[in-house]
């Protein structure tokens, strides 16, 4: 059991009558990358702002690295690095100035500032742009400066609100790599509404909908247990009932235009049976794709308010 870095209990926050975050409870341990997933307005940002101490919760408890955020805010805040949705950067400063200021705010010794700024710049690929004005940087670089200011003081917990928004594919790859590295010795919480993002970088996933935590799991579990399926395309399709009789198929979904989704128990894909049946009965198989769509399906079912069919 690794060390618990964040414990959140019964976190609630209202905006007027709307419960933006409603009784959310979770924990984060070192070496975990926790992805907050949810549609816009699900309460992801609000939860993260409360974690960072920018917003005070109406109810609930937040303990960061053993310090209660409400009782010992300064100690708890020292243990956290936060990148808000909009990177909190001063356009009129250079990258170096911004990072030095952030370092001072986080109480890093004057003597240690130079070293930690240098190290962080290297880590985030900012060495070249140290003298440039932040206002003149591209969105991708600004995002990196935002991350740099969040990890400058080497906090055990890093909270990133939509870190990959607005990045081009190459920057995206770099960012994923950086977050992966952070996950090796920190606890990382990030929010996104992009599913592939979670599958690519997170070790754990939590789905928020309308302020409530509706799903939490380790990604590895999800994949193991994932209700996998097989997508097939047939040029001369039989009825769904006939397809359902293929051994190993649990349920058939008709997707229209000769396409079907065949649900099967995990780890027992009925490829062979499908191919054999198709060959024997002349269905004209033209597509056969294994789908690992567990997370996406769970996400859609949960956020559209449908039951998850187990």
């Amino acid at each position, binding site marked *: 059991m690794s060390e618990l870095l964040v414990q959140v209990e019964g976190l609630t926050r209202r905006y007027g009558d709307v419960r933006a975050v409603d009784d959310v409870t979770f924990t984060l341990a070192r070496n975990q990358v926790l992805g907050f997933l949810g549609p816009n307005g699900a309460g992801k940002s609000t939860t993260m*702002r409360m974690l*960072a*101490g*920018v*917003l*005070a919760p109406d109810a609930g408890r937040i303990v960061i690295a053993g310090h209660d955020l409400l009782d010992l*805010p*300064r*100690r708890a*805040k*020292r243990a*956290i690095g*936060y990148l*808000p*949705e*909009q*990177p*909190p*950067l*001063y*356009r*009129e*400063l250079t990258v170096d100035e911004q990072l030095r*200021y*952030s370092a*001072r*705010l*986080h*109480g890093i010794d004057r003597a240690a500032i130079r070293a930690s700024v240098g190290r962080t710049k290297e880590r985030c690929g900012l060495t070249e742009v140290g003298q440039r004005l932040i206002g003149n940087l591209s969105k991708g670089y600004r995002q990196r400066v935002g991350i740099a*200011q969040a990890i400058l003081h080497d906090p055990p917990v890093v909270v990133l609100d939509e870190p990959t928004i607005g990045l081009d594919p190459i920057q995206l790859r770099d960012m994923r790599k950086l977050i992966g590295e952070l996950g090796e010795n920190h606890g990382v919480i990030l929010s996104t509404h992009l599913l592939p993002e979670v599958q690519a970088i997170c070790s754990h996933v939590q789905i928020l909908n309308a302020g409530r935590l509706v799903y939490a799991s380790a990604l590895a579990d999800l994949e193991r247990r994932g209700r996998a399926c097989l997508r097939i395309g047939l040029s001369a399709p039989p009825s769904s009932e006939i397809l359902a009789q293929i051994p190993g198929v649990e349920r058939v979904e008709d997707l229209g235009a000769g396409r079907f989704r065949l649900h099967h128990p995990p780890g027992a894909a009925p490829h062979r049976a499908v191919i054999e049946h198709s060959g024997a009965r002349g269905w004209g198989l033209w597509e056969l794709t294994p789908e690992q769509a567990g997370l996406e399906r769970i996400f859609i079912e949960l956020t559209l308010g449908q039951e998850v069919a187990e």
Partner: protein
Amino acid sequence: MFAIAAHELRGLFLSPLAWTLLAAFQGLLAWIFLVLVDDFRALQGRLLGLENPPGATDLVAAPLFRVTAWGLLVLAPLLTMRLFAEERRSGTLDLLLSAPVSVTAIVLGKYLGVLLFLLGASALVASMPLSLALGATLDFGKLLAGLLGLGLLAASFAAAGLYLSTLTVQPVVAAVSTTGLLLFLYIVDVADIGREAFAGPFGYLSLARHFDNLLLGAFDSADVAYYLLFGATFLGLAIRRLDDGRLRD
């Protein structure tokens, strides 16, 4: 806290706004100073006949400081307007709030930054009458009292401006409301015109009345306390407002 103050001061000098304001402030007051010195020279001959003649301090420094006070009234809101409004708008307030720094330290740090700038501007103005010491006798007691008054006035203006800046995301709204409020408090004693000084409640409320006392060289701890209370009240309100903001918005 000092990191914030230093950042604030540097931020001011990185923008052309501060330089422009400083130049305009200094230029206008230098002009007035020259006019005052000229008048004084013209009057000097007649003054010699008087028994207890007013000196350069009364005829040059005091009126100059009175105009400087008006200058500060214009200058302070333009400097304080950005303090929180801008940070809120650009999202950088989150940086401060998520840092291990208390709200009090944030407010005091920013206040200190602007105050240092205003005091610097006042000191530059004060250097003009001081230069008269080369050729005339000055009453340094009065001069110091006047300077203290300017400093206190600047401190009060900055505190009020800082508070109003926490109320809005639009720097311009903050500037206009600050100017309005300060102007009102400065001239509120017009309601007392025709009565004895300090006779009415409005006279006591006025920012200017307490300053006049100091210009005359009368150091009254009540006047000083007035400014300190004024400043502390607005800083306290600003801290409350920011703490509340964490709860509300």
